């Protein structure tokens, strides 16, 4: 749409042009702080919005289960931040609360967000509390008008909070339709990727540090974060650092959906996961500015120390285990990080601590049983076996024993190279990166200028 820039400028509530430094570099920290809210201000906004201060739970049974099959002296203590206790059932309430606050402050009559996930519920819930009109645009169905039960539940909960839900079939043109709706209504674009939303997640990192210091007397050794678009990793990591937990390892985790095409009508209902998967996790980490804002505030490669993948079958197994051993019926997508944490705990000493930083609500449709029954109905095999045999879209292999759960490290060096290649390919042809660009790329990939320069040189030759 030719008027895209004009529509987005009116809908975003801020001018992104002020942060641009060239075709590659931009002032990320300037963008993140331009809303003018301190972390304390955001805590205040969220307290008034009924968001945050969720329970931090130690999972003693899961911890001992890991110890039962670990080498002596191994088996880190596992904790979870029960984000399902937020009003709309996930950490996304933190993200929505700041955007909705900004929309109110700036006098918008309503908000629009494009999301088939928990974010829609959060935006709808916060809009209801603030008397704002709300439209949620969802990719909901395949061409047969069939949708994953988890997404149908998200349509229901958004409507329960009074939102207008616009359901679409599969396709990236959803974003053009969202632009048309923004143009028609003049509403605020409550993008998942704005600095408002990502700043709202920083309080989660802050709470984790404060609570872990109170319970264990130290910062957590690792925080494991279910990773999709990158906001969860970015916001949590920034909060941890703001709270002084600079030595805590930041671990992102996604469900491996390799082999499935995210824009395919046929693959759409064979994913068995709606989020927290590599289909979002890899493209958004390696090119964050693919988002619906000029510059994405969610830049996960800046922060992740490791990126782990787990299989569909492993996550469904751990979702069942969490309910049966800890009395926590949550997820399933939100248990991706829990599954990775179970694998990591086995290699860490018993006095080490791991925090899984979210859970999400569960219910009819949005439940591992519903997703597995749906997978079977759509021709995906579900069986017991070695999770390494799991094949997305074809076979979901449920582990026979917890010992079989083994997260796999994604090659971060490869992701960093991919990011640099994407950044160069989006600059004008023949553009030579400046020293400032090199520093920006190094920071944005949690790398160093020499590595970035070597990558660029290799790309030129290749």
């Amino acid at each position: 749409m030719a008027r895209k820039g004009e529509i987005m400028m009116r809908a975003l509530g801020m001018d992104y042009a002020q942060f641009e430094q060239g075709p590659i570099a931009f002032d990320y920290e300037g963008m993140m702080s331009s809303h003018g809210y301190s972390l304390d201000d955001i805590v205040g906004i969220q307290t008034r919005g009924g968001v945050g201060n969720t329970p931090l739970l130690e999972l003693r049974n899961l911890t001992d289960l890991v110890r039962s099959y670990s080498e002596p002296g191994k088996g880190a203590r596992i904790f979870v931040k029960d984000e399902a206790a937020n009003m709309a059932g996930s950490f996304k309430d933190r993200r929505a609360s700041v955007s909705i606050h900004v929309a109110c402050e700036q006098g918008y009559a309503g908000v629009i967000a494009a999301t088939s996930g928990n974010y829609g519920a959060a935006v709808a819930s916060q809009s209801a509390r603030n008397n704002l009109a709300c439209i949620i645009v969802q990719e909901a169905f395949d061409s047969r008008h069939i949708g994953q039960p988890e997404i149908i539940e998200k349509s229901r909960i958004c409507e329960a909070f009074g939102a207008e839900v616009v359901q679409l079939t599969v396709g990236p043109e959803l974003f053009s339709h969202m632009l048309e709706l923004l143009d028609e209504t003049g509403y605020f674009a409550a993008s998942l990727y704005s600095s408002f939303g990502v700043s709202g997640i920083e309080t989660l990192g802050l709470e984790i540090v404060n609570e872990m210091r109170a319970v264990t007397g130290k910062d957590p050794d690792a925080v494991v974060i279910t990773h999709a678009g990158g906001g969860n990793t970015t916001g949590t990591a920034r909060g941890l650092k703001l709270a002084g937990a600079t030595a805590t390892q930041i671990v992102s985790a996604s469900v491996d959906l390799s082999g499935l095409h995210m824009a395919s009508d046929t693959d759409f209902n064979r994913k068995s996961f709606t989020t927290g998967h590599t289909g979002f996790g890899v493209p958004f980490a390696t090119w964050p500015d693919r988002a619906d804002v000029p510059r994405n505030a969610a830049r996960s490669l800046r922060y992740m120390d490791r990126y782990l993948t787990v299989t569909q079958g492993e996550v469904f197994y751990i979702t069942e285990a969490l309910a049966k051993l800890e009395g926590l019926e949550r997820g399933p997508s939100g248990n991706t990080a829990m599954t990775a944490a179970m694998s990591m705990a086995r290699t860490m000493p018993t006095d080490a601590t791991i925090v899984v930083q979210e859970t999400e609500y569960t219910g009819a449709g949005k439940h591992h049983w519903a997703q597995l029954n749906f997978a079977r109905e759509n021709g995906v095999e579900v069986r017991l076996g070695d999770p390494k045999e799991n094949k997305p879209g074809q076979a979901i292999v449920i582990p026979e024993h917890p010992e079989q759960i083994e997260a796999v490290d994604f090659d971060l060096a490869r992701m960093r190279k991919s990011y640099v290649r994407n950044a160069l390919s989006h600059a004008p042809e023949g553009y030579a990166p400046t020293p400032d660009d090199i520093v920006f790329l190094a920071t944005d990939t949690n790398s160093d200028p020499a590595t970035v320069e070597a990558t660029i040189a290799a790309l030129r030759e290749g």
Partner: protein
Amino acid sequence: MADTARCSVGEWVEVERVLLEPADRSGALPEDTASQPLMTWVKGFALAPAEMGGECSVTTMTGRTVTGTLSAINPGYFHTFGQPIPELVHVGADLRAKLAQYRASNTGAGEPRG
């Protein structure tokens, strides 16, 4: 008995629309997606009586007027948990047994800490 094939004025209904015909869709789509129209469904209050499959205009929850084909009257939600998954029904008992065995052989393990 209510006429399920026809809605009345003010009734809560769903309308269906074709947003893009296959020929107008974005490039670079996989073939299975490119060959299908981009469809949309929106719910609202019917502005006039309409037949199922006939043209219908609605006022949505945000007050927009949307015109499409009447696709459902008072649409409900029928998603469920479904049946238990046979591959998962033993997980709870298996893991509790493992835990009990581990704790029996490691006195003091699992006691509240911190």
